[in-house]
């Protein structure tokens, strides 16, 4: 156990936000779910008791007859904003006084940094480069992430859970977002920052970053494993494998979507275009961990090799 190495990585000024990330994301996830579960309990009560549903104000926040429904922004909101500004300023000041921004040697194109890393918030994308060619990891995936995020309100046809925390009423949406944001984005950022060392090789926390470490990669393309040598045939074969993956994943996603009565009802509200967009985005999302598993478990480099691009 190389504690010194661990400390060197953790105390790197630019890695401090990652430490913050690893604290605030679990905290706010807990904070949100605590309220979601409290709301869900109230929803169950309201569903069981129609009389209560008619009269209840339907929030977990207390409300008594005679209370004003609205408060003045001055001072009830402005004082919070003012306080928040002061607290943020104080934190930023202390952070800036105690920790210096990094400054390395002057830029030198002839001396490559090893490992040379993108800023921490892009390390998820850089980590993807291990599993995909740059045109997928660096161009197609980021574009799909942005487009996919924008598409969320237009493909989510579930009218429930608008403006309050709930888990029960939006299980599928919440699981999708959590796997996308926490597993595929934040965990990849943490791996890229804390785990990847020289040569972008995998070093467990506490393992010494050995610049001379050699790993004999035995990754092979899928068609090599199977033993196809003709380019035309393995091109078609790769296409069929990818198409098969798309169909199977689409089928699995559909099964998952139609598992409950409620989800079937929501699915009925979708147009074909909404459904296909959602399928495309979800299949792409599943594609990332699928390729990671193929690489890490079966040492597969490419699934589909063509003269123009490789997947």
């Amino acid at each position, binding site marked *: 156990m190389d504690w010194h190495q661990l400390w060197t990585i953790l105390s790197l000024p630019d890695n401090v936000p990652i430490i913050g990330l690893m604290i605030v994301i679990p905290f706010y996830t807990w904070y949100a779910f605590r309220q979601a579960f409290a709301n869900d309990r109230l929803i169950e009560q309201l569903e069981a008791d129609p009389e209560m549903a008619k009269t209840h104000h339907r929030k977990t926040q207390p409300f008594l007859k005679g209370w004003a429904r609205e408060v003045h922004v001055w001072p009830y*909101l402005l004082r919070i904003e003012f306080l928040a500004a002061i607290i*943020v300023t104080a934190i*930023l000041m202390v952070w800036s006084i105690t920790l210096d921004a990094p400054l390395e040697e002057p830029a030198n*194109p002839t001396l490559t940094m090893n490992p040379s890393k993108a800023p921490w918030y892009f390390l998820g994308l850089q980590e993807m480069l291990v599993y995909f060619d*740059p*045109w997928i990891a660096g*161009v197609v995936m980021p574009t799909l992430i942005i487009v996919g995020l*924008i598409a969320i309100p237009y493909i989510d046809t579930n009218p429930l859970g608008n403006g309050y925390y709930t888990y029960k009423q939006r299980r599928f949406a919440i699981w999708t977002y959590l796997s996308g944001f926490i597993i595929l984005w934040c965990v990849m950022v943490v791996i890229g920052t804390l785990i990847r060392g020289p040569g972008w090789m995998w070093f467990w926390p506490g393992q010494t970053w050995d610049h001379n470490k050699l790993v004999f990669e035995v990754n092979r393309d899928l068609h090599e494993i199977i033993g196809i040598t003709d380019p035309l045939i393995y091109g078609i074969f790769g296409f069929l494998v990818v198409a098969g993956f798309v169909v199977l994943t689409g089928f699995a996603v559909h099964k998952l979507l139609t598992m409950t009565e409620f989800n079937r009802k929501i699915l009925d509200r979708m147009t074909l275009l909404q459904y296909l967009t959602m399928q495309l985005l979800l299949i792409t999302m599943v594609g990332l961990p699928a390729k990671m598993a193929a690489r890490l478990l079966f040492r597969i480099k490419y699934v589909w090799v063509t003269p123009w691009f490789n997947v």
Partner: protein
Amino acid sequence: MAEKTTKKTGQEAGTNGTAGNGNGKRLLGIDPEAIKAKAIEDLEAIKQPTKTDLYKSIFRVKHDETPRSRTLGVLSNVFLHLHPAKINRDAVAYNYTWGMGGISFYLFWVLTWTGVLLMFYYHPTKVQAFRDILYLEHDVPFGKLLRNMHRWGAHAMVLTVWLHMYRVFLTGSYKKPRQFNWMVGVILLVLTLLLSFTGYLLPDDQLGFWAVTVGTNMARATPMLGHEGPFGLMFGMTAYNDVRFALLGGSIVDSNALLRAYIWHCVAIPGFAATFMIVHFWRVRKDGGISGPAPMMLEKEIKPLRR
């Protein structure tokens, strides 16, 4: 006013001392008692600054503990009128809002000001950029603090923007009628990341240089528009005309890339971000204010969809 003018002319002319109560001694036609009374009056006025003409001219309405003046205090102020006069009593609950949107905006503001101050000391040229950072760190008063605040503020803003988005998703606040504002928010997220990324190169050190090299190398692989991307060669792409060349103003990260990063970072992207922020805040109000905590809806209350 008339009295003052009289006194002034009296002083200049050395005659005419009719002002004042007439009992005190007069020196060169000035009544010291009258001046004393005036001075006391002014000092008394300081105790109630809100009654002065100066105060009234700035704030337009007097502020006292009435609902009317609390409302006017918000509505008649150019900065505060972003808010409604009144909001739902639960909408101020921190456990609902997390305050991350507001904090992101505040951090943007802090970054704008620290950024402007940094610009005074920075030249976006290969010769001077790195030396300017050294100068900032070692010679400029509070220069190190300034740079640290700018960098850590930027990192913090990336985090708060993510958390803001996380909260908005978990409360389903992107749902009707706020779909478009979610889109504006996604654009602002991308602009935040781009702002941070373009700023990374500016110190012109190894860290920024290689981070930007790694980042822009991906642009080489853009399908059809990058010379190493799928179908790039078919579209006539080389290292000297593809999308990476456009980003860097050259085939390597050099002086043109530094200048481009600087202009994107200090002028263009902040301009876009500010514009989208105006739309974002405007739409928060137009879409009915903050989304909740809203009364919960039950499954049996879902209305059939009308197309």
